[in-house]
Protein backbone atom coordinates (compact mmCIF):
# COMPACT_ATOMS: atom_id res chain seq x y z
CA UNK A 1 0.00 0.00 0.00
CA UNK A 2 1.28 3.43 -0.90
CA UNK A 3 1.89 5.94 1.87
CA UNK A 4 0.85 9.58 1.58
CA UNK A 5 1.84 12.09 4.25
CA UNK A 6 -0.48 15.08 4.67
CA UNK A 7 0.97 17.96 6.69
CA UNK A 8 -1.67 20.08 8.41
CA UNK A 9 -5.05 18.96 9.80
CA UNK A 10 -7.16 21.96 8.84
CA UNK A 11 -10.03 21.79 6.34
CA UNK A 12 -7.78 21.18 3.30
CA UNK A 13 -5.80 18.47 5.11
CA UNK A 14 -8.92 16.72 6.37
CA UNK A 15 -10.66 16.77 3.01
CA UNK A 16 -7.59 15.61 1.07
CA UNK A 17 -6.95 12.84 3.60
CA UNK A 18 -10.53 11.60 3.32
CA UNK A 19 -10.37 11.55 -0.48
CA UNK A 20 -6.97 9.85 -0.62
CA UNK A 21 -8.10 7.26 1.89
CA UNK A 22 -11.12 6.51 -0.30
CA UNK A 23 -8.80 6.13 -3.27
CA UNK A 24 -7.06 3.37 -1.34
CA UNK A 25 -3.99 5.05 0.05
CA UNK A 26 -2.48 4.75 3.48
CA UNK A 27 -2.79 8.32 4.69
CA UNK A 28 -0.77 9.73 7.59
CA UNK A 29 -2.08 13.11 8.69
CA UNK A 30 0.19 15.30 10.82
CA UNK A 31 -1.32 18.09 12.92
CA UNK A 32 0.75 20.39 15.13
CA UNK A 33 -1.99 21.39 17.57
CA UNK A 34 -3.95 19.21 20.04
CA UNK A 35 -7.06 19.19 17.83
CA UNK A 36 -8.06 18.83 14.20
CA UNK A 37 -9.73 21.60 12.19
CA UNK A 38 -7.21 24.44 12.13
CA UNK A 39 -8.76 27.89 12.21
CA UNK A 40 -12.18 26.42 11.44
CA UNK A 41 -12.26 24.85 14.91
CA UNK A 42 -12.02 28.31 16.43
CA UNK A 43 -14.64 29.94 14.23
CA UNK A 44 -18.31 30.35 15.10
CA UNK A 45 -20.28 30.85 11.88
CA UNK A 46 -19.32 31.02 8.22
CA UNK A 47 -20.13 33.57 5.53
CA UNK A 48 -22.16 34.11 3.44
CA UNK A 49 -25.10 32.25 4.99
CA UNK A 50 -24.01 31.83 8.60
CA UNK A 51 -23.64 28.04 8.66
CA UNK A 52 -22.13 26.96 12.01
CA UNK A 53 -18.43 26.16 11.61
CA UNK A 54 -18.91 23.27 14.01
CA UNK A 55 -21.32 21.46 11.66
CA UNK A 56 -18.94 21.74 8.72
CA UNK A 57 -16.00 20.54 10.78
CA UNK A 58 -17.96 17.61 12.21
CA UNK A 59 -18.86 16.52 8.69
CA UNK A 60 -15.22 16.68 7.64
CA UNK A 61 -13.93 14.81 10.65
CA UNK A 62 -16.57 12.08 10.16
CA UNK A 63 -15.11 11.47 6.68
CA UNK A 64 -11.59 10.64 7.81
CA UNK A 65 -12.40 7.28 9.40
CA UNK A 66 -9.43 5.05 8.75
CA UNK A 67 -6.93 7.84 8.28
CA UNK A 68 -4.05 7.68 10.75
CA UNK A 69 -3.55 11.06 12.32
CA UNK A 70 -1.12 12.37 14.87
CA UNK A 71 -1.92 15.40 17.02
CA UNK A 72 0.70 17.67 18.57
CA UNK A 73 3.00 16.28 15.94
CA UNK A 74 5.32 17.99 13.54
CA UNK A 75 7.78 17.05 10.88
CA UNK A 76 11.30 16.92 12.28
CA UNK A 77 12.99 16.04 9.05
CA UNK A 78 12.04 15.25 5.50
CA UNK A 79 14.35 14.14 2.73
CA UNK A 80 14.30 12.28 -0.55
CA UNK A 81 15.33 8.60 -0.63
CA UNK A 82 15.24 7.28 -4.20
CA UNK A 83 11.69 8.08 -5.26
CA UNK A 84 10.11 8.43 -1.84
CA UNK A 85 10.33 10.91 0.98
CA UNK A 86 11.58 9.84 4.37
CA UNK A 87 9.47 11.77 6.87
CA UNK A 88 10.45 11.73 10.55
CA UNK A 89 7.98 13.12 13.10
CA UNK A 90 8.79 14.51 16.55
CA UNK A 91 6.92 11.60 18.16
CA UNK A 92 9.44 9.12 16.79
CA UNK A 93 7.30 7.89 13.88
CA UNK A 94 9.05 7.49 10.54
CA UNK A 95 7.18 7.14 7.25
CA UNK A 96 8.46 6.41 3.79
CA UNK A 97 6.00 8.44 1.74
CA UNK A 98 5.29 8.12 -1.97
CA UNK A 99 3.95 11.65 -1.97
CA UNK A 100 3.68 14.50 0.50
CA UNK A 101 0.87 17.04 0.58
CA UNK A 102 1.27 20.41 2.26
CA UNK A 103 -2.02 21.65 3.68
CA UNK A 104 -0.26 23.83 6.20
CA UNK A 105 -2.66 26.73 5.79
CA UNK A 106 -2.11 30.21 7.13
CA UNK A 107 -1.22 32.15 10.26
CA UNK A 108 -3.29 35.17 11.16
CA UNK A 109 -1.34 38.38 10.88
CA UNK A 110 -0.18 39.31 14.41
CA UNK A 111 -2.23 42.49 14.89
CA UNK A 112 0.08 43.92 17.56
CA UNK A 113 2.54 44.61 14.74
CA UNK A 114 0.27 47.44 13.62
CA UNK A 115 1.10 49.40 16.74
CA UNK A 116 -0.95 52.44 15.75
CA UNK A 117 -4.13 50.37 16.23
CA UNK A 118 -3.18 49.50 19.79
CA UNK A 119 -3.87 45.75 19.88
CA UNK A 120 -2.42 44.46 23.14
CA UNK A 121 -2.08 48.06 24.36
CA UNK A 122 -5.67 49.29 24.61
CA UNK A 123 -8.14 47.01 26.28
CA UNK A 124 -11.00 47.44 23.80
CA UNK A 125 -9.09 46.56 20.65
CA UNK A 126 -9.65 42.96 19.54
CA UNK A 127 -9.17 40.93 16.36
CA UNK A 128 -11.58 39.10 14.05
CA UNK A 129 -10.45 35.83 15.68
CA UNK A 130 -11.12 37.22 19.18
CA UNK A 131 -14.62 38.25 18.12
CA UNK A 132 -15.33 34.82 16.60
CA UNK A 133 -14.23 33.30 19.88
CA UNK A 134 -16.62 35.62 21.73
CA UNK A 135 -19.49 34.65 19.41
CA UNK A 136 -18.68 31.03 20.19
CA UNK A 137 -18.10 31.21 23.92
CA UNK A 138 -19.55 34.59 24.97
CA UNK A 139 -16.49 34.82 27.16
CA UNK A 140 -14.28 37.88 26.74
CA UNK A 141 -14.12 40.75 29.22
CA UNK A 142 -13.29 43.20 26.45
CA UNK A 143 -16.72 42.81 24.88
CA UNK A 144 -19.07 44.59 27.30
CA UNK A 145 -22.85 44.87 27.43
CA UNK A 146 -24.70 47.70 25.65
CA UNK A 147 -21.93 49.17 23.55
CA UNK A 148 -22.78 52.45 21.81
CA UNK A 149 -20.43 52.25 18.85
CA UNK A 150 -18.29 49.49 17.39
CA UNK A 151 -15.79 49.77 14.55
CA UNK A 152 -14.25 47.27 12.15
CA UNK A 153 -10.92 47.96 10.48
CA UNK A 154 -10.42 46.20 7.16
CA UNK A 155 -7.01 45.22 5.71
CA UNK A 156 -5.04 44.88 8.97
CA UNK A 157 -1.69 43.49 7.89
CA UNK A 158 -2.87 43.18 4.29
CA UNK A 159 -2.29 45.58 1.40
CA UNK A 160 0.38 47.08 3.55
CA UNK A 161 4.03 47.19 2.51
CA UNK A 162 5.15 48.21 5.96
CA UNK A 163 3.45 45.19 7.50
CA UNK A 164 5.31 43.12 4.91
CA UNK A 165 2.17 41.92 3.15
CA UNK A 166 1.33 43.70 -0.05
CA UNK A 167 -1.45 41.33 -1.09
CA UNK A 168 -5.16 41.27 -0.27
CA UNK A 169 -6.18 38.50 2.13
CA UNK A 170 -9.39 37.91 0.23
CA UNK A 171 -11.70 36.74 3.01
CA UNK A 172 -11.57 39.57 5.53
CA UNK A 173 -14.01 41.92 3.77
CA UNK A 174 -16.66 39.23 3.83
CA UNK A 175 -15.72 38.35 7.41
CA UNK A 176 -16.03 41.98 8.52
CA UNK A 177 -19.45 42.35 6.93
CA UNK A 178 -20.59 39.06 8.44
CA UNK A 179 -19.35 40.01 11.89
CA UNK A 180 -20.82 43.51 11.61
CA UNK A 181 -24.27 41.97 11.02
CA UNK A 182 -23.79 39.44 13.81
CA UNK A 183 -22.79 42.13 16.30
CA UNK A 184 -25.98 44.03 15.35
CA UNK A 185 -27.95 40.87 16.08
CA UNK A 186 -26.35 40.78 19.53
CA UNK A 187 -26.68 44.51 20.21
CA UNK A 188 -29.47 45.98 18.03
CA UNK A 189 -28.89 49.55 19.26
CA UNK A 190 -25.19 49.70 18.56
CA UNK A 191 -23.88 51.89 15.74
CA UNK A 192 -21.49 49.90 13.57
CA UNK A 193 -18.81 51.40 11.32
CA UNK A 194 -16.69 49.51 8.79
CA UNK A 195 -13.54 51.31 7.68
CA UNK A 196 -12.62 49.94 4.25
CA UNK A 197 -10.54 50.89 1.22
CA UNK A 198 -12.30 48.64 -1.27
CA UNK A 199 -15.00 46.15 -0.48
CA UNK A 200 -14.04 42.88 -2.08
CA UNK A 201 -17.32 40.99 -2.13
CA UNK A 202 -16.45 38.67 -4.99
CA UNK A 203 -18.21 35.41 -4.12
CA UNK A 204 -21.70 34.17 -4.64
CA UNK A 205 -24.00 35.75 -2.10
CA UNK A 206 -21.37 38.16 -0.77
CA UNK A 207 -22.80 41.26 -2.43
CA UNK A 208 -26.19 40.36 -0.97
CA UNK A 209 -24.54 40.17 2.42
CA UNK A 210 -23.17 43.69 1.91
CA UNK A 211 -26.56 45.00 0.86
CA UNK A 212 -28.20 43.35 3.84
CA UNK A 213 -25.57 44.87 6.18
CA UNK A 214 -26.61 48.30 4.90
CA UNK A 215 -30.33 47.80 4.49
CA UNK A 216 -31.27 45.42 7.30
CA UNK A 217 -28.62 46.31 9.87
CA UNK A 218 -27.80 49.93 9.06
CA UNK A 219 -24.05 49.30 9.11
CA UNK A 220 -22.18 52.43 8.04
CA UNK A 221 -19.35 51.89 5.56
CA UNK A 222 -16.66 54.55 5.64
CA UNK A 223 -14.20 54.57 2.81
CA UNK A 224 -10.91 55.31 4.50
CA UNK A 225 -8.26 53.47 6.44
CA UNK A 226 -8.06 54.04 10.17
CA UNK A 227 -4.84 55.91 10.71
CA UNK A 228 -4.56 55.92 14.48
CA UNK A 229 -6.35 54.92 17.64
CA UNK A 230 -6.06 56.47 21.10
CA UNK A 231 -7.67 55.60 24.40
CA UNK A 232 -9.42 58.07 26.71
CA UNK A 233 -9.70 57.91 30.46
CA UNK A 234 -12.91 55.82 30.26
CA UNK A 235 -11.08 53.24 28.15
CA UNK A 236 -13.08 54.29 25.10
CA UNK A 237 -11.25 54.44 21.81
CA UNK A 238 -10.85 57.60 19.78
CA UNK A 239 -10.47 56.59 16.16
CA UNK A 240 -9.21 58.80 13.37
CA UNK A 241 -9.65 58.22 9.67
CA UNK A 242 -10.43 60.16 6.57
CA UNK A 243 -13.83 59.93 4.98
CA UNK A 244 -12.26 59.88 1.55
CA UNK A 245 -15.65 60.26 -0.16
CA UNK A 246 -16.05 63.73 1.32
CA UNK A 247 -12.35 64.38 1.70
CA UNK A 248 -12.69 65.25 5.37
CA UNK A 249 -11.08 63.86 8.48
CA UNK A 250 -13.39 61.86 10.71
CA UNK A 251 -13.30 61.22 14.43
CA UNK A 252 -15.44 58.76 16.31
CA UNK A 253 -15.43 57.38 19.84
CA UNK A 254 -15.87 53.61 20.01
CA UNK A 255 -16.51 51.04 22.71
CA UNK A 256 -14.87 48.27 20.73
CA UNK A 257 -12.62 48.11 17.70
CA UNK A 258 -12.26 44.89 15.73
CA UNK A 259 -9.16 44.44 13.57
CA UNK A 260 -9.48 42.29 10.46
CA UNK A 261 -6.18 40.44 10.66
CA UNK A 262 -5.16 39.06 7.31
CA UNK A 263 -3.50 35.81 6.28
CA UNK A 264 0.15 35.03 5.95
CA UNK A 265 1.87 31.74 5.20
CA UNK A 266 2.07 29.36 8.15
CA UNK A 267 5.47 29.68 9.81
CA UNK A 268 5.59 25.99 10.86
CA UNK A 269 4.80 24.89 7.33
CA UNK A 270 7.44 27.19 5.94
CA UNK A 271 10.07 25.55 8.19
CA UNK A 272 9.28 22.12 6.75
CA UNK A 273 9.26 23.47 3.21
CA UNK A 274 12.72 24.96 3.79
CA UNK A 275 14.12 21.46 4.20
CA UNK A 276 12.89 20.66 0.72
CA UNK A 277 14.09 23.90 -0.79
CA UNK A 278 10.58 24.92 -1.84
CA UNK A 279 9.94 27.65 0.72
CA UNK A 280 11.69 30.51 -1.02
CA UNK A 281 8.59 31.39 -2.85
CA UNK A 282 7.33 34.55 -4.43
CA UNK A 283 7.84 37.74 -2.49
CA UNK A 284 4.52 37.34 -0.69
CA UNK A 285 5.80 34.46 1.46
CA UNK A 286 3.35 31.86 0.16
CA UNK A 287 4.56 28.71 -1.57
CA UNK A 288 5.11 28.90 -5.29
CA UNK A 289 3.09 26.44 -7.37
CA UNK A 290 4.60 24.80 -10.42
CA UNK A 291 2.36 26.87 -12.64
CA UNK A 292 0.05 29.70 -11.63
CA UNK A 293 -2.93 28.56 -13.71
CA UNK A 294 -2.68 24.95 -14.79
CA UNK A 295 -0.80 23.20 -11.98
CA UNK A 296 -1.97 24.82 -8.78
CA UNK A 297 -1.55 21.64 -6.76
CA UNK A 298 2.01 20.83 -7.85
CA UNK A 299 5.11 22.19 -6.19
CA UNK A 300 8.31 22.62 -8.16
CA UNK A 301 9.47 19.24 -6.77
CA UNK A 302 8.30 15.82 -7.87
CA UNK A 303 6.02 14.19 -5.34
CA UNK A 304 5.37 17.30 -3.27
CA UNK A 305 1.89 18.82 -3.54
CA UNK A 306 -0.03 21.80 -2.16
CA UNK A 307 -3.64 22.50 -1.29
CA UNK A 308 -5.34 25.35 0.52
CA UNK A 309 -4.09 28.66 1.88
CA UNK A 310 -0.38 27.75 1.90
CA UNK A 311 -0.27 28.99 -1.70
CA UNK A 312 -2.18 32.21 -1.03
CA UNK A 313 -5.32 33.43 0.74
CA UNK A 314 -8.34 31.19 0.06
CA UNK A 315 -11.92 30.90 1.15
CA UNK A 316 -13.02 27.67 2.78
CA UNK A 317 -14.76 26.33 -0.37
CA UNK A 318 -11.63 27.23 -2.39
CA UNK A 319 -9.50 25.19 -0.02
CA UNK A 320 -11.85 22.22 -0.16
CA UNK A 321 -11.84 22.22 -3.95
CA UNK A 322 -8.06 22.34 -3.95
CA UNK A 323 -7.92 19.46 -1.48
CA UNK A 324 -10.02 17.31 -3.79
CA UNK A 325 -7.96 18.37 -6.80
CA UNK A 326 -4.75 17.53 -4.94
CA UNK A 327 -6.05 14.06 -4.10
CA UNK A 328 -6.58 13.34 -7.80
CA UNK A 329 -3.23 14.86 -8.80
CA UNK A 330 -1.46 12.71 -6.19
CA UNK A 331 -3.35 9.64 -7.41
CA UNK A 332 -2.24 10.37 -11.00
CA UNK A 333 1.33 10.92 -9.88
CA UNK A 334 1.58 7.72 -7.85
CA UNK A 335 -0.01 5.72 -10.68
CA UNK A 336 2.44 7.27 -13.11
CA UNK A 337 -0.30 8.96 -15.14
CA UNK A 338 0.86 12.22 -16.67
Amino acid sequence: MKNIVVIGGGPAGLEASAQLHRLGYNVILVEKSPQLGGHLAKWDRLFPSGIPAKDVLEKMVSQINGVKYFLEANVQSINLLHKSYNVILNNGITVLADAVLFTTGFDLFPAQKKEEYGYGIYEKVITNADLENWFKTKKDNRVTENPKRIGFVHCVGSRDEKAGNRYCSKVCCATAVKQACEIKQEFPDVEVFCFYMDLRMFGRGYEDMYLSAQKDYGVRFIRGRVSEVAENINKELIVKAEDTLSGKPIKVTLDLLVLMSGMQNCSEGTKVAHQLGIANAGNDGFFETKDAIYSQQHSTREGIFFAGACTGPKTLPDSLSEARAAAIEIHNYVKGIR
Partner: protein
Amino acid sequence: MVKFGFALNPSSRIDLDKTDREKFAQLVELEPDVLKCMACGSCTASCTAGKFTPTSVRSAILEIQNGRWQQALDMLKGCLLCGKCTMVCPRAINTRHLILAINEVYQSGK
Protein backbone atom coordinates in the same frame (compact mmCIF):
# COMPACT_ATOMS: atom_id res chain seq x y z
CA MET B 1 -6.02 95.37 13.94
CA VAL B 2 -2.78 94.04 12.54
CA LYS B 3 -3.33 91.72 9.57
CA PHE B 4 -0.98 88.77 9.68
CA GLY B 5 -2.07 87.43 6.31
CA PHE B 6 -3.71 84.35 7.80
CA ALA B 7 -6.74 83.51 9.88
CA LEU B 8 -7.99 80.54 11.83
CA ASN B 9 -10.40 78.31 9.98
CA PRO B 10 -13.11 76.40 11.78
CA SER B 11 -12.33 72.68 11.98
CA SER B 12 -13.60 70.71 9.03
CA ARG B 13 -13.39 67.48 10.97
CA ILE B 14 -16.48 65.30 11.03
CA ASP B 15 -17.42 64.15 14.51
CA LEU B 16 -19.45 60.97 14.28
CA ASP B 17 -20.18 61.10 18.00
CA LYS B 18 -22.48 64.01 17.31
CA THR B 19 -24.68 62.77 14.47
CA ASP B 20 -28.43 62.99 15.07
CA ARG B 21 -29.58 59.40 15.09
CA GLU B 22 -33.22 60.30 15.75
CA LYS B 23 -33.57 62.47 12.69
CA PHE B 24 -31.81 59.88 10.59
CA ALA B 25 -34.23 57.24 11.90
CA GLN B 26 -37.10 59.45 10.74
CA LEU B 27 -35.57 59.64 7.31
CA VAL B 28 -35.12 55.88 7.18
CA GLU B 29 -38.75 55.54 8.19
CA LEU B 30 -39.84 57.71 5.24
CA GLU B 31 -37.34 56.30 2.72
CA PRO B 32 -35.61 53.12 3.95
CA ASP B 33 -33.61 52.83 0.75
CA VAL B 34 -31.34 55.70 1.83
CA LEU B 35 -29.38 52.96 3.59
CA LYS B 36 -28.66 51.18 0.32
CA CYS B 37 -26.48 53.84 -1.32
CA MET B 38 -23.06 52.47 -2.27
CA ALA B 39 -21.63 55.84 -3.26
CA CYS B 40 -21.19 54.94 -6.91
CA GLY B 41 -21.83 58.49 -8.10
CA SER B 42 -24.09 57.63 -11.04
CA CYS B 43 -26.73 60.04 -9.74
CA THR B 44 -24.30 62.94 -9.57
CA ALA B 45 -22.81 62.17 -12.95
CA SER B 46 -26.11 62.34 -14.77
CA CYS B 47 -27.75 65.10 -12.72
CA THR B 48 -29.34 67.80 -14.86
CA ALA B 49 -28.72 70.51 -12.30
CA GLY B 50 -25.32 69.24 -11.25
CA LYS B 51 -23.45 70.85 -14.12
CA PHE B 52 -24.45 74.34 -12.97
CA THR B 53 -25.05 74.00 -9.23
CA PRO B 54 -23.45 71.80 -6.57
CA THR B 55 -26.35 69.33 -6.75
CA SER B 56 -25.34 65.78 -5.83
CA VAL B 57 -27.49 63.06 -4.33
CA ARG B 58 -24.47 60.96 -3.46
CA SER B 59 -22.85 63.80 -1.53
CA ALA B 60 -26.12 64.77 0.12
CA ILE B 61 -26.57 61.23 1.47
CA LEU B 62 -22.99 61.25 2.72
CA GLU B 63 -23.38 64.64 4.41
CA ILE B 64 -26.47 63.38 6.21
CA GLN B 65 -24.66 60.23 7.32
CA ASN B 66 -21.93 62.51 8.64
CA GLY B 67 -24.43 64.63 10.54
CA ARG B 68 -24.09 67.67 8.27
CA TRP B 69 -27.68 67.95 7.10
CA GLN B 70 -27.53 71.71 6.45
CA GLN B 71 -24.92 71.03 3.77
CA ALA B 72 -27.17 68.32 2.36
CA LEU B 73 -30.12 70.67 2.11
CA ASP B 74 -28.00 73.33 0.41
CA MET B 75 -26.75 70.75 -2.00
CA LEU B 76 -30.26 69.73 -3.04
CA LYS B 77 -31.59 73.27 -3.48
CA GLY B 78 -30.89 73.27 -7.20
CA CYS B 79 -32.68 69.96 -7.81
CA LEU B 80 -35.34 70.09 -10.52
CA LEU B 81 -36.87 66.77 -9.50
CA CYS B 82 -36.35 65.60 -13.06
CA GLY B 83 -35.76 62.03 -11.89
CA LYS B 84 -32.71 61.21 -13.99
CA CYS B 85 -30.84 60.11 -10.88
CA THR B 86 -33.61 57.63 -10.09
CA MET B 87 -33.26 56.18 -13.56
CA VAL B 88 -29.54 55.53 -13.24
CA CYS B 89 -29.23 54.42 -9.62
CA PRO B 90 -27.92 50.80 -9.67
CA ARG B 91 -29.22 50.17 -6.18
CA ALA B 92 -32.73 51.07 -7.39
CA ILE B 93 -33.14 53.82 -4.85
CA ASN B 94 -36.06 56.14 -5.52
CA THR B 95 -33.72 59.12 -5.22
CA ARG B 96 -36.44 61.57 -6.18
CA HIS B 97 -38.54 60.43 -3.28
CA LEU B 98 -35.44 60.44 -1.12
CA ILE B 99 -34.78 64.10 -1.96
CA LEU B 100 -38.32 64.99 -0.95
CA ALA B 101 -37.97 62.97 2.23
CA ILE B 102 -34.69 64.67 3.14
CA ASN B 103 -36.37 68.04 2.75
CA GLU B 104 -39.33 66.97 4.79
CA VAL B 105 -37.30 65.64 7.72
CA TYR B 106 -34.50 68.17 7.86
CA GLN B 107 -36.20 71.39 6.71
CA SER B 108 -38.54 71.22 9.66
CA GLY B 109 -35.63 70.63 11.96
CA LYS B 110 -34.15 74.00 11.18
